[in-house]
């Protein structure tokens, strides 16, 4: 059971500011039955998260070593949650290895501004595909401007869809919950992930309860 979207890597973004809290987060994931986690720190320069790929790899190596030393049974790999902006040439940065794909594959976890819709999201994904990348839409349910029809056509064009488990639970914003359910109902979801931050834990038990009525596997390995 893989969680493909998690901000557990310490000191990489706003996910966790200490090794101890990161280890606690990971242990909780494992307790819920998660076997593999892709660590996906933010690339979000406007919010100040712009660590280089080399820095992240270093942080990852140190963390993986610590996890192994403590015998926490979780397979770790590294990715990045990239915020798309017109100002940065993120595709070029990926090409140059300045940004990270998911676990070294051609898949890219991409998020957008919630309040400011991109001009033509399908065209953005097309640009990624021209350079050999496949876009995973991170928490596709949270965008008020992103409708089901657009998501469906993007999927047909080769994109993948990830939703946050938390969106299905009580306490999440009504609209996001409604969209998440609609995506599940239309079989448009490839992954359900935690998008876990230290200040926002994920109750996998409740999430799995909500997912029981859908037959698909939402926790596949990234490969």
């Amino acid at each position, binding site marked *: 059971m893989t969680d493909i979207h998690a901000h557990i890597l310490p000191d990489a973004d706003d996910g966790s500011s200490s090794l101890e809290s990161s280890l606690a987060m990971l242990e909780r994931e494992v307790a819920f039955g998660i076997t593999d986690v892709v660590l996906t720190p933010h690339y979000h320069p406007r919010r100040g998260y712009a660590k280089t790929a080399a820095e992240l790899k270093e942080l990852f190596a140190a963390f993986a070593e610590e996890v192994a030393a403590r015998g926490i049974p979780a397979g770790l790999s590294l990715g990045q949650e990239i915020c798309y902006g017109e100002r940065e040439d993120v595709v070029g940065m990926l090409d140059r290895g300045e940004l990270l794909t998911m676990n070294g594959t051609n898949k890219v976890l991409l998020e957008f501004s919630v309040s400011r819709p991109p001009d033509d999201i399908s065209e953005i994904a*097309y640009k990624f595909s021209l350079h050999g990348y496949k876009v995973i839409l991170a928490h596709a349910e949270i965008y008020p401007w992103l409708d089901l*029809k657009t998501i*469906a*056509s993007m999927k*047909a*064009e080769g994109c993948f869809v990830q939703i946050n488990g938390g969106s299905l639970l009580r306490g999440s914003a009504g609209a996001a919950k409604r969209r998440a359910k609609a995506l599940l109902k239309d*079989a448009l979801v490839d992954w359900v992930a935690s998008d876990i931050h230290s200040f926002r834990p994920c109750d996998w038990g409740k999430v799995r309860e909500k997912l029981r009525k859908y037959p698909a596997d939402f926790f596949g390995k990234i490969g």
Partner: protein
Amino acid sequence: MTANLIGKLRRGRAKVEYMKKDKKRVAQNPGYRIVSMENPLSPAAEAFRRLKVSLDFLGVDEKLQVMQVCSAVQGEGKTTVLLNLGAIYAEDGKKVLFIDLDLRRPRLHRAFKIENKLGIADYLAGYAKAEEIVKHVSANIDLINCGIKAPYPTSVLGSQQLKNLVEDMRGRYDIILIDCPPVLTVTDACITSRLTDGTIFVVSASTTEKAAAKEAVSVFRQNNIRILGCVMTEVSCGLRGSFYYNNTLKYYNANYGDGGTAGN
């Protein structure tokens, strides 16, 4: 005004497979494939050849050199029809030019796996020269993609500069096919129709709503747009008994002349 059903195109296999997999019919686009090029002997290519023959006959008296392909709303297959029709002309030895004037949602470049850079909008804004925007994409086929996002598409499309460019291209190509925005979304298609010798109207047998098709036709009528005929896409055996298929087809036969079919 009358318009014949000049083409019928079956639903592609890729689409059916996709539907089966997800057990759900969703609006989607299998990557703007040009079957007439990939598989010239396929029934689909044959259907496009018949469409071309229909157009040849429609052009007996007045030469049809510049045509636009239009639909009521988005996602009915207009770009696919345009690409395949162009491929058939090219196969026939004609020099073909595609122009993407769907400035709000350009897609034509995708069929040739190129980036949407330096296009018609760049030219009209003065950022590029005419020779820079014409790309040779395939044997006998050139493409002018859309390019930079134009903030005021309608005024761009009505510009004298664009008119001059198309006139100039008439001297260089045998056939010019223009991709324009859906007629019910914006008024662009009415404006671009003035650049052309006629409009091909694409209707999806499975998704176009009767009311939308009807409204589109009244828009054409009000604007004196010459409809060469309508092409019905996504016709499938399974859908033959469906609401949309029966209603749309009946509608066209009843309202558009003799209902003659060039398609299968």
